[in-house]
């Protein structure tokens, strides 16, 4: 990719003897919003800390804007980071928190006042300039933390699970707020999260990580509709995944159900496409719960545990009921390799 | 790297001289020998002082535990706004010069002190009786000096009690005695052990109290050490006493750690 703005090459990162990320390569375009997605321990935060310069790589290199910054210390990299805890300075006012980096750069007082006020206005904290961080709400602290980094106009902005300490409602607001900021400023952002919905909603591109390696990379729609591995499919909500071998579906109990023509690998179904009421399989309803627009079922069957859903208009099957169901091949998503 | 100056400073100034001093106990006439220990142990005075020190240590720790427990438990049951203040009063003596604290007992127990005034005034005795320079005086002095440590340990253990443990036990039908025996006591055992160790080692290694209230009549290990050096220039005995003191205070610290971590 010629237009790459941030480029990680064969990056290996370790804490002591524990290798957290191995041989990772990734190119990020200018102005792109990338999310690093994955379960805890997958290496996403470690990768981010390496880009920030808080962790030196064991091997490999990091380039930003055409310059190799692998050996450049964190305070000279021009990278902004919003911490999960916000890491605001409790002894300084809102204004001084934002002014902190500008003062280090020996910017004149008049200029500082102008830029801090402007940036506080952008995040709608202009009125609260004299408050201490402890007097701000969670959402306000979050925005202050953003303003503190943005005022320095960093080349790259890193965000470490920045929304995880907010309540559900605020999280949605902040999501769109972040998107707006990013679109307006055109800043390159790397957003770390373990929340699949957040990653898909925000990103231009999603990098799904597992065990220190990139599992799959692509646009949100690519990842959502075409996960290429069992892990990715599972992460993207294909909750029923079964191996297919020699024209037969392999149940968890080892049973072989013929009639599937897919090439060897796996087939995956979202709960919505499992059809209940008829079909070649039988199971027992172990749980049913109301989820607004649908009923969600957990069904135990000889194949294994199946999750399914039906529109809420229909009366639900009661717990303990035996029912027939089908995993129609045409709705199954094909994955190479077994789970 | 940052910790190095502090470590080097402490090691050269504190540990090195102390280790050399300890080694003196094993040297007699410029040769390595255990003769010093044999001589030391064979002297009845040394034996008396050793066992007296040990006895007072246990006694002070034991009595502190009983009185301290009752006090801590009472303070713990005060409304929280009073609790802080009373707790402050318990801690306060720790910040005051031990010399000043101990000297008060001279006023109380001296020949013209408050206790003797009472004894003579009530006609229990015609002449003042000797209360100073007795084991009782040293015991009282040590108890006053170190009991706050016990109370502090116990109160912090009680404050760490799971919030609803007592309430849960009450709801399950336990009376106060049962709550105390089955819930509070087992859960504050650690505080008792920590407090006990602090009071015990404090008493073992106290100098001021036996020096002022015991004098030459009631020697303890530290005052004996001072006397051996100042009066007799006897560094073999000094090394031996130092070894005993350090062994006992490190030993009880280790023991406490084991007891504290043994709970599952």
């Amino acid at each position, binding site marked *: 990719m010629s237009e790459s703005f941030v480029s990680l090459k064969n990056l290996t990162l370790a804490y002591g003897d524990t290798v957290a990320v191995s041989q990772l390569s990734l190119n990020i375009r200018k102005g792109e919003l990338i999310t690093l997605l994955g379960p805890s321990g997958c290496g996403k935060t470690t990768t981010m800390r390496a880009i920030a310069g808080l962790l030196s790589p064991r091997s490999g290199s990091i380039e930003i804007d055409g310059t190799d910054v692998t050996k450049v210390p*964190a*305070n000279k990299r021009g*990278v902004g980071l919003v*911490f999960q*805890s916000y*890491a*605001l*300075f*409790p002894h300084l006012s809102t204004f001084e928190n934002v002014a*902190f980096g500008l003062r*280090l*750069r020996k910017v004149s007082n008049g200029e500082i006042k102008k830029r801090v006020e402007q940036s506080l206005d952008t995040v709608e904290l202009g009125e609260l300039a004299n408050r201490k961080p402890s007097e701000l709400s969670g959402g306000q602290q979050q925005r202050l933390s953003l303003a503190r980094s943005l005022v320095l106009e960093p080349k790259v902005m890193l965000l470490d699970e920045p929304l995880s300490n907010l309540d559900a409602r605020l999280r949605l607001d902040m999501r769109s707020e972040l998107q707006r900021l990013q679109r307006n400023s055109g800043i390159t952002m790397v957003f770390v999260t373990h929340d699949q919905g957040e990653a898909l909603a925000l990103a231009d591109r999603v990098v799904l990580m597992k065990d220190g390696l990139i599992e799959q990379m692509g646009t949100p729609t690519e990842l959502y509709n075409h996960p290429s591995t069992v892990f990715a499919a599972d992460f993207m909500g294909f909750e029923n995944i079964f191996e297919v071998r020699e024209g037969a579906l392999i149940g968890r109990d080892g049973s072989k159900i013929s009639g599937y023509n897919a090439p060897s690998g796996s087939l995956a179904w979202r709960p919505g496409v499992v059809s209940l009421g008829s079909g070649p399989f039988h199971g027992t309803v172990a749980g049913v719960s109301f989820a607004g627009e649908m009923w969600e079922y957990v069904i135990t069957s000889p194949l294994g545990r199946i999750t399914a859903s039906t529109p809420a208009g229909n009366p639900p099957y009661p717990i303990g009921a035996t029912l027939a169901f089908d995993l129609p091949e045409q709705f199954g998503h094909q994955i190479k390799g077994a789970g | 790297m*940052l*910790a190095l100056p*502090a*470590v080097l*400073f*402490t*090691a050269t*100034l504190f*540990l*090195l*001289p*102390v280790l*050399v001093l300890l080694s003196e106990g094993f040297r007699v006439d410029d040769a390595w020998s255990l003769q010093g220990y044999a001589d030391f142990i064979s002297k009845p005075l040394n034996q008396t002082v050793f066992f007296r020190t040990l006895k007072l240590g246990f006694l002070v720790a034991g009595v502190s535990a009983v*009185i301290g427990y009752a*006090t801590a438990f*009472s*303070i713990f049951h005060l409304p929280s706004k009073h609790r802080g203040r009373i707790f*402050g*009063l*318990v801690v*306060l*003596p720790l*910040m*005051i*010069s*031990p*010399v*000043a*604290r101990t*000297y*008060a*007992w001279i*006023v*109380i127990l001296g020949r*013209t002190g408050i206790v003797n*005034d009472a004894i003579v005034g009530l006609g229990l005795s015609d002449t003042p009786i000797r209360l100073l320079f007795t084991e009782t005086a040293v015991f009282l002095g040590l108890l006053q000096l170190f009991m706050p440590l016990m*109370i502090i340990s116990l109160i912090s253990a009680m404050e760490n009690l799971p919030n609803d443990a007592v309430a849960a036990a009450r709801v399950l039908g336990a009376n*106060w005695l049962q709550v105390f025996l089955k819930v509070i006591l087992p859960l504050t055992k650690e505080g008792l052990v920590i407090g006990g160790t602090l009071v015990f080692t404090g008493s073992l*290694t106290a*100098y*001021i109290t036996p020096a*002022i209230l015991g004098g030459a009549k009631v020697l303890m290990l*530290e005052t004996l050490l001072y006397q051996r*050096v100042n009066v007799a220039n006897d560094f073999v005995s000094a090394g031996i006493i130092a070894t005993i*003191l*350090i062994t006992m*205070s490190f030993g009880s*610290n280790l023991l406490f750690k084991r007891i504290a971590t043994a709970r599952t």
Partner: protein
Amino acid sequence: MGKWTTFLIIGLTLTFLIGPFFIIIAAGLSAGENLAFPPEGLSLKWYWAVFEVESFRESFALSMFLAVFGTLSALVLGVPAAYALSRYRLPFAETVKTIVAAPIIVPGIIVGLGLLRYLVIPLNFTVSMALFMAHTALVIPYAVRVVTASLENLRSDMEEAAILLGCTRFGAFVKVVLPNIRGGVLAAFILGFVTSFNQVPVSLFLSGPGVRTLPIDMLAYMEITYDPSVAALSALLAIMSVGIIFLAEKFLGFSRYV
């Protein structure tokens, strides 16, 4: 447990712990020549007399000097150590902790004697120098403990944030860490000051002609006289400590740190 039992137990214990101070204050107020309680008439003369004693004035000055500068040096050594212990995974962290804590565990009298015999005499140190070093070492454990506790309460990502905004590590420490552990450092100073000022065993052997700390001087003085001046001085010291702690508690919430 009944309300009155509670009050009674607390009352008795506090009387035992604190009562003697009132007795000693009163004993110092005596108008007579001998130590007695109740005092023989009331007067402030012994309280004034304390200030007339030359050796008390000298030893007070020495104790003050040791307490202030010994504690400051202990902080200079102890704060970096505390920082290292709480921020880095040191290879021998436990050993470092044990060595730094040793001055609390090793009985002071042994330390004093060891210093005198193997450092002061062979290396020709002055007694004041040895006292200064011993008091510094004595306070290090308190400095390290109190400052470490403050540091552990301060999230380390705050320093990383400062670094990413352009600070050096040292700059981040000065601009972000220090302002936020100010209370802890001040509390460590007060605790160290009080500990050093009241310290006896370490200084016991480290005394020379004209070089005595105040508590040692008091011990010597009470062996030769039986007048109420030592009681008066003890009372003054107690009042001074109470005053310091009261102010520290009021402005700092001192007890949080100890």
